[in-house]
C-alpha cells in the first residue's frame, strides 16, 4: 500500500473535534506500520491557526476556500477528492461524526475508491492494512482488507484516546490551492441551538437511560420515579427520541450528548456503537436488557437479564427505602 496516511481534521464552530485527535493517534500507528508520512488535512476558511494543535501529524495540508467555511459534505468532498486525486494517499481516515457524515458518504463516490465503514481498529504490517469493523449494531465484527489504491476509512469514536493524538511541536503547514467545482446545490443557513429550559443531562450525577426495550411511553414514568429517588434525571437512546417519548436534548450518543455521570442505569438499551460512544466513560454502569447477547453488557459493570421496567420499578422502591 503506497502513499501517505491522511487524517481529515474535523473542525466545527472554530474547534478541532476530539474525534480528530483519536483518528490522528490511529493514523500515527498506521503511518509507522506502513513507513509513510502522517498528514492532517484541514479544510475551511480562515482556520489556519487550528493547524497548530495537529502536532501528532508530520505535516498539515491546509485548504482555505470560501466554499469550505461551513464544511458541508457536498463541498468538502469535492475539495478533498480533488486533492486526493493529485496526491494519491494510501488511507484517508475520517472521523465518524455528524459533522463528517456527508463527507464520508460522498468522498468514496467522488474518488471511485472503497470505503471501510464502522472501523474500530486497524493495523499495518508488511505494507498491508487489516481493518476491523463493527456492524449489525455492534453484534458482529468483520476483519477485512482492501486492494491497492486509496481507501477511505470511517473511524469510529473511541478508536484511541484523544489525548494520544494531541501534543507534539507545531507541525509544518502546507497551504494548498485546490481547484474544485464548489456547486451551490446545498446551502447552509444557520445553526439552531436546542431549546433551553430542559434538564442538562451532562451535569447530572445520576442518569436513568431508557431505550426501545421499555416498550411504551408510559414506562418512561417508571424511569422518572427511579431518577427522582436517586436525585438524577432520565435520558434515552435514539429510538425513544424518535418516538417522541423524550426531547432531543435528552439523547445520549451520536446526535445527542456525551455524559460521564457517577451512575448510568441503561434500561432496555441494546448498546449500539452510536449510543455507547456517549456513555462508556460513566463511573458505574448498570445495564438491564432481556437479550443476554446485547452489546451493552460489554461496557456495563453490572448486568441484569430481565424486563427493564420490572427492574426499574423494584430499584426505585429499593433506593427509596434505603434513602428513607
Amino acid at each position, binding site marked *: 500500500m503506497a502513499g501517505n496516511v491522511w487524517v481529515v481534521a474535523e473542525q466545527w464552530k472554530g474547534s478541532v473535534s476530539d474525534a480528530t485527535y483519536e483518528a490522528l493517534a490511529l493514523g500515527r500507528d498506521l503511518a509507522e506500520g506502513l513507513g509513510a508520512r502522517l498528514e492532517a488535512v484541514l479544510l475551511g476558511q480562515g482556520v489556519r491557526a487550528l493547524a497548530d494543535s495537529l502536532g501528532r501529524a508530520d505535516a498539515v495540508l491546509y485548504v482555505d476556500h470560501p466554499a469550505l467555511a461551513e464544511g458541508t459534505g457536498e463541498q468538502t468532498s469535492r475539495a478533498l477528492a480533488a486533492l486526493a486525486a493529485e496526491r494519491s494517499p494510501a488511507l484517508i481516515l475520517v472521523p465518524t461524526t455528524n459533522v463528517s457524515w456527508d463527507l464520508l458518504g460522498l468522498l468514496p463516490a467522488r474518488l471511485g475508491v472503497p*470505503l471501510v465503514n464502522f472501523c474500530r481498529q486497524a493495523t499495518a504490517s508488511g505494507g498491508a492494512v487489516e481493518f476491523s469493523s463493527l456492524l*449489525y449494531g455492534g453484534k458482529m465484527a468483520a476483519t477485512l482488507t482492501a486492494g491497492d489504491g486509496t481507501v477511505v476509512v470511517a473511524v469510529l469514536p473511541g478508536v484511541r484516546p484523544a489525548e494520544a493524538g494531541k501534543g507534539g511541536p507545531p507541525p509544518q503547514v502546507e497551504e494548498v490551492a485546490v481547484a474544485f467545482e464548489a456547486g451551490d446545490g446545498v446551502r447552509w443557513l444557520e445553526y439552531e441551538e436546542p431549546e433551553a429550559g430542559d434538564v442538562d443531562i451532562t451535569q447530572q450525577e445520576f442518569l436513568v437511560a431508557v431505550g426501545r426495550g421499555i416498550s411504551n411511553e408510559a414506562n418512561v414514568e417508571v424511569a422518572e420515579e427511579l431518577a427522582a429517588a436517586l436525585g438524577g434525571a432520565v435520558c434515552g437512546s435514539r429510538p425513544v427520541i424518535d418516538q417522541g417519548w423524550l426531547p432531543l436534548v435528552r439523547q445520549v450518543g451520536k446526535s445527542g450528548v456525551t455524559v460521564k455521570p457517577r451512575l448510568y442505569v441503561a434500561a432496555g438499551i441494546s448498546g449500539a456503537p452510536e449510543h455507547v460512544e456517549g456513555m462508556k466513560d460513566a463511573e458505574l454502569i448498570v445495564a438491564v436488557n432481556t437479550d443476554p447477547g446485547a452489546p451493552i453488557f460489554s461496557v456495563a459493570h453490572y448486568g441484569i437479564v430481565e424486563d427493564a421496567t420490572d427492574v426499574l420499578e423494584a430499584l426505585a422502591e429499593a433506593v427509596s427505602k434505603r434513602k428513607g
Partner: protein
Amino acid sequence: MKILVLMKMVPDIVEELEVAADGRSLDQEYLRFIVNERDEYALEQALLLKDRLQATVVVVAPEAPEVDDVLFTARAKGADRLIKVVGLPAGAGARVTATALAATLPGVDGVLPADLVLSGCQSIDDLDGFVAPLLAAALGLPYLGLVSRVAVDAEGGKALLSKEYAGGVMGRFELSLPALVGIQGCEKPPRYVPVAKVRAAIAAGGIEEVAAAGGAGVAPLEIAAMAKPEAAGHAEMLEGSARDVAEKVADILAARGLL
C-alpha cells in the same frame, strides 16, 4: 410533485446472529429480515409531504425476503407506486446496490426525474458505504444526510432541511431541487396502519418488478473473517427476581456511597 423513497431490508438484530460455515458472512438460514428503520422514517416524511403538497410517492426497494410485505405496507400507508428491483446478488452491499439503482432507475418509465429522493441515511449493514450519498453522487444530485425535518418550496424549487449535529444542535440548510436527502428522523414516528388495510393492499397487488441493470463498480472489500466481537470486558451479571437484583444493585450503590 414526485417523491421517490428508497427502502431496503436488513437483518433483524433482535434475533441471534450466527456466522456462516465460510467464517466470513452471516448464516442466512435463521436470518429474519426487517425494513431498515431509517427508511421507515423516509417513507413517513414522504407521506407527510404528500399530504401537504399533493405529491406522488413512489417506493423502490431491492428484492429481499419479506420485502413484498414492506412494499404493500407502504401502499396501505399511502404510497402511489411500488417498484421492486430484482436480480441483485443476495447480500449486495451498499456500493453494489447504489451502482445498480443508478443504472436501473433512469430506465424505468416515470420514475426519474423525481423532485425529491428520500432514503434512510444509514443502515446496520453499511460496511462499504451508504446507499443514499453513493446514489446521489452517481445521479449528480445535491445531497444532505442526517436530516430529520423536510419542508418543500415547490414553486421556488428548493427544500428547507434540518440536519442533526451533536448535543441537540440542528443545522438549517437549503437544497436546490431535484435533490437526494438521507433521512435520520422525522417530525412524527412512522404512522400505524391497520392490518386490514395491509391485507387489502396485498390482495390488490401491484408491485412492479424491474430487472437490475449492471454498472461499473469499485473493487470490493475482502472480508477475511466475521465473528461476534470480543469484548474488552463484560458486566458482572446479577441474577434473581427483579426484586432480588434491585436489592443487589442498591447494595452496590450504597457500598459506593451513591445513596
